């Protein structure tokens, strides 16, 4: 048959589909004002506020405050994107039938997931660049263990993304919005992400097993001491595996 609409079906190559999906999702994330606030503005405020506050109060750090806060704020930025932004975006994708529609498109589920990971990495890269520039301008003098930092970012992203998708897959969109923000606030305040778990006294032994504490401590180990913290990375890996299993068992299209 000929004609404008004559059938000629076929899926685009997998890599092209993933790139298209990642581009689309990162653009939508960066277009969203609330998400930008969460991704960049809040971490910058925490960084500036934390350093200013530590001048007024003696928090007993053995390193300059900017060196302690910067790795923690980078961890916070990862948490905001991989967990909160992803959960909220995915919750509303389910609500609006986006995931359902894509489920009928040539894009396989693995491609959808890869696209989401790609979008997260794009946004996280922007966050890391902005926060690093701000921190350097404030006199940050890191002693970077790049291997440890990279592993912490990747495993932290995997752990938080799997937990974010789990929440988005079982709760309604509004409940996901509330829960993802609440968990973010609780972990920012008491999850040893910005402040080291050692600053929490006895509670530190508990919070360092949270994904937030493990990510924060791994980032600090890597960027203050240039050290790769195996225990913290294993904790993140454990959360990533657990979160993935939970999500795979519970996630539905609608």
């Amino acid at each position, binding site marked *: 048959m000929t*004609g404008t*609409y004559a059938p000629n*079906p076929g899926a685009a190559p997998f890599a092209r589909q993933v790139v298209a999906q990642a581009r689309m999702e990162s653009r939508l994330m960066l277009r969203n004002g609330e998400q930008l606030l969460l991704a960049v503005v809040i971490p910058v405020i925490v960084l500036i506020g934390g350093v200013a506050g530590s001048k007024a109060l003696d928090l007993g750090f053995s390193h300059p405050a900017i060196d302690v806060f910067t790795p923690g704020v980078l961890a916070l930025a990862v948490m905001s994107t991989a967990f909160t932004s992803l959960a909220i975006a995915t919750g509303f994708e389910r609500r609006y039938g986006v995931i359902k*529609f894509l489920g009928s498109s040539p894009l396989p589920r693995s491609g959808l997931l890869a696209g989401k990971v790609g979008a997260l990495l794009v946004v996280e890269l922007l966050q890391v660049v902005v926060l690093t520039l701000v921190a350097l301008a404030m006199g940050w003098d890191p002693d970077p263990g790049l291997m440890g930092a990279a592993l912490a970012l990747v495993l932290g992203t995997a752990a938080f993304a799997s937990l974010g998708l789990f929440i988005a897959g079982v709760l309604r969109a509004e409940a996901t919005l509330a829960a993802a923000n609440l968990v973010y606030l609780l972990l920012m305040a008491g999850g040893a992400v910005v402040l080291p778990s050692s600053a929490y006294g006895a509670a530190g032994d508990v919070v360092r097993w949270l994904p937030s504490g493990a990510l924060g401590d791994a980032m600090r180990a890597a960027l203050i001491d240039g050290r790769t913290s195996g225990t913290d990375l294993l904790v993140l890996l454990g959360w990533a595996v657990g979160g993935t299993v939970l999500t795979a068992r519970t996630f539905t299209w609608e």
Partner: protein
Amino acid sequence: MPEAAPAVQIDGLVMRYGSKTAVDDLTLTIPRHTITAVLGPNGAGKTTTLETCEGYRRPQQGTVRVLGLDPVRNRRDLLPRIGVMLQAGGAWSGVRAMEMLHHVARLHAHPLDVDALAERLGLGDCGGTPYRRLSGGQQQRLGLAMAVVGRPELVFVDEPTAGMDPQARRSTWDLLEELRDDGVTVVLTTHYMDEAERLADGIHIIDHGRLIASGTPLELTRGGTVATIRLVVTRPFPTGAPESLRQALGAETEVTVLDELSLLVTGPADASTLAKVSRWCEEAGVLPESLTLGQRNLEDVFLQLTGRELEK
């Protein structure tokens, strides 16, 4: 022989949600290169049937084949070959209309010319508008564009013109006809009789998850050789009224009670039927408010089959 297989082949499909049976032993075949309407009231099981064909739901009993493939087991082979228009939604709330269409096109190997398609569906003016600010009709047209942009062999469209103004409706119908003429199979659900009658080559009428009639519009309405007389009266019919009317009219005529003040007579299209009905009114002591003669249309077919009006 997947090439020779019909577009859709459903055998003994049963789908239940809890204690409710949504699809009840449904068997039907949809040939290729046609526009086929699955017609029925809301809640008849149309969407469930479509979603089973699209691979979203696994048949609980029976089999479903689409282009000769199992929509669940052969999902990855099937999906690039079909297009799906959901009843609602399907796009991000903040995505611009054209951005969404371009995105869907990029998932396919040889998509249609996106700008030409958008122009064709009258989406040119709202291409930069975020999805959530599009009107209902614009969202429907974008949904249709998203379903066909990948040049599928088969498109499933769920209530494509619900909420559209008459002009958008006609241009949607025109596009569906062009698709069919270019070799695409179109399967649509609708609860609009006029849409099915005007557009479809074949119609399957579904009620309570069961197939109650199949055929071309002409076959279903018996091509105008059958007339309908709609009788509306001022006071409720006396007891035993439909039976006595049936006796008065003879075996070739059917009487369907619509409610306590109206009924439908279906029979040979001649003056004698009309005369018999008015004579019966006189004998039974009922005062007609209106007596309307017409050709049998799909609406009447549905009424007769189910005893209910469709668009209510």
